[in-house]
């Protein structure tokens, strides 16, 4: 009962927390991988509490998890090889050390952040794909 009420509502706070962890990652404890696992855990709770059908009805983006995985991978690869296009070794992040950086609050806009966002999308998407299929497997067995 408690899970059914609390589970779906935990997703919002989890996403906020994840964003905080990614952003904080550049100044303090946190990184994209942890953020992704936290969001995935919250989504998992949603699957457990609502069941696959309702979980995905209320949040249709879950059905496109494999696309999100692919987008995340492409984003990370693109950022990683951006340097190669400019003639630098791969994973030369921009702007380079010592150059001025555009900041939004404490967030610095550097390519490493984009790489992390790709990583976040990939890991979250991958875990959701797994949950989707496992949930179907369980549903199929129960019938």
């Amino acid at each position: 009962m408690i899970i059914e009420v609390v589970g779906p509502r935990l997703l919002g706070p989890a996403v906020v927390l994840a964003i905080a962890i990614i952003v904080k990652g550049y100044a303090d404890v946190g990184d994209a991988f942890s953020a992704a696992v936290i969001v995935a855990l919250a989504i998992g709770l949603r699957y457990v509490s609502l069941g696959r059908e309702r979980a995905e009805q209320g949040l249709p983006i879950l059905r496109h998890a494999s696309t999100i995985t692919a987008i995340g991978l492409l984003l990370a690869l693109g950022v990683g090889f951006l340097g190669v296009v400019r003639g630098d070794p791969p994973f030369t992040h921009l702007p380079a050390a010592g150059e001025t950086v555009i900041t939004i609050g404490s967030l610095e806009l550097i390519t490493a952040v984009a790489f992390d966002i790709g990583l976040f999308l990939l890991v979250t998407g991958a875990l959701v794909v797994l949950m989707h299929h496992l949930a179907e497997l369980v549903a199929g067995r129960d019938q």
Partner: protein
Amino acid sequence: MPGSFHIVVKRLFRDLTGSAGILAAMTARTSTALAWAAIAMAAGAFVALLIGWLGGGFVLDLPWAPTLGLRLDLALDGIGALYALLATGIGLLVFAYGRAYLPLHLGQAERPAPDAWRFWSWMVLFMAAMVGLALARDLVLMFVFFDLTAVASYFLIGFDREQREARGGALMALVVTGVSAVAMLMGGVLLYVEYGTFALPALIERAEPGGVTLAAGALIATAALAKSAQVPLHFWLPRAMVAPTPVSAYLHSAAMVAAGVLVLGRVHPLLALNEVLLTALIVVGFASIVVGGVLALAQDELKQILAHSTISQYGYVVVLYGIGGSAAAGAAALYVVTHAIAKSALFMTAGAVTLATDESRLSRLGGLGTRMPLLAIASGVAAATLAALPLTLGFFKDELFFGAAIGAGPGIGAMAVVAAALTFAYIGRFWLGLFTGRPGALPNAIPHLLVLPVAVLAVVAGAGGIVVSPFAALAADAAGVSHGAPVAIAPAYHLDARPENLMALAAWALGGLVLVTAGARDRVAGFVARAGDAMGPRRWYGAALHAANRLSDRLHGLEVHDLRTSLAAVLVPGGILMGLAFAVTPTDGTFEVGPILAGDLPIVVLLALGIAAAITAARDPGRFRPVLALSVLGFALAAVYAMVGAPDVALVAVVVETMLTLVFVGAFAGLPPPDPSMPPPVPGRRFRNAIAGVAAGASAFAVIWAALSRVPIASGDAAAQIERVADAHGGDVVTVILADFRGLDTMVEITVLAVAIFGVAALLRRGRAGTR
């Protein structure tokens, strides 16, 4: 499950492209468009290369991986122009032929028209790789293109993938040419270690005779000889005849097999440093001429005759490179051109005849001359070219060959006559058997495009027999690279009793004799063919492949026998390898026990909790308690990380631990209840469990202890990197390591993760379909 990988790949492909809709939407018209696009590409490349060569060639030299000394060094010099023009020119005609052939081929096998896209993409990729190989002057770059041709040939030979023979033939070609290609890389690395460069021009300047150049030359020559289907690595070529005819006409006349002698021609100045290598080339070349020639006489299948003829013909070129010197280099270059023109025409003839009559055996064919006159004349010119009759380009190839052979000594000259006689005999048997004599299977009408390319090649070969100078100029230019100095060759008709002319007459007479004495010829050739089947190298290949397969199966069986062996397969080798590493590493000051301070008390308590949890997990017979104990252990360690000043590691540990615990609980909840009738574990097994666990645990313990007693972070290598965290706009070491210092690792890891996810998803979906 051997098939599961394919399913995974297929799923992955479908998931990535959206659906099978793209493929289904491709109609026969688009596949025709693909064919014309390939033809246009070949034509464009041919014209561009021709203009480039006439304009004096070019050199494109760009750094590729400077730290490894690799360069993208492409040069349109003589030899590059010769092979690149062959690859694109013959490619153009074969593509045109394939445009007519492929729809009929697919129609016969009742395959959908969209299968054509696989054919054309691999054909074009092959052509590109071949041009790249022709122009490359860097050993590593050559190796890359060399392997690319092998990979493309695998898919082309195995194009009819539902046929078992096609898959086997494709695999054999890939294994033989691909494995021996590694020898070429090894040779290149040997030279790099000695002379500090992979670039051939520099190597040729610096290299000196001796052990290194001998070993490197032998390795490179091995790769080249396997690619050119030379004895004893020739057996893959006849098996590769399962390929569709355009593939054989292209790969097995002008391209794939030519790649081997191309490499020989490129690196010839290095080979020529050691006399013994050249002698070995002569031996291998003549062995291939005889084996290929005699076996060609024994074959009944049209394409098999031609395949064995190819083995024999490239033997000529190898012999010429073995003889060395300017005359032989020129002869080799002209030989390659002439053979490619004639052989691709003959392959296309075989394909056209087979498509028209639905019959591929010489014994069931005959008398086609009156029914397919144009094809008969055109392929007659091609056959005459191969048999070196006058008024064809082929006459000059043998003139130069005889000239070089007689220059190398009377013994080699005599062998050359025997070789030419064999060629005359088997190619005469092929053409006469097809187009003259008693009529066999009747031909149906076939598209003109199947005959036209043969006619074009016949015109080229005939024109070359009258005006040889353009071909001679190209060959001389190419020979200049192989010989290392300008080469002048002057093929021409001479109506006098010079040795070349006498040798040619002797060869025709001898060949005619073999052709006439059919009974004796068939007995000898049949005997050699049977002997080769019984104890030839193909048998060794099969035995080696089976042995490797059995070994792999046995290891695999040992590993996946049950859960226990699966775990042991990870733990025991891991433990042993780490133990060995420790045995050979100096351990001074590595194993230190530091003092325990008062402030360390919480850590000690947490570690004690961890130890207790570990013991519970190992000893408890239940299901949930060990899982919970493992999770306690994980959280305790996470807390320790947090306390020793690594909160970022602790955060990762906490989320991973949460995930793992949930997965474990979920999986265990799905298990059936314990079966009380299960027999108790065998005592001996428990003993083995303990040994495996202790081996793995002890070495892990040693590693961690050693790591913890290392110099403090503040003064190690890591310190320098940690100091630079600020440069990467980060304050958190883990984030910066993942995104910056180890960015490439992270990227590869996430790529593997993505592929694994698609694989797991495919397996789960398939598992569900199976239970329905």
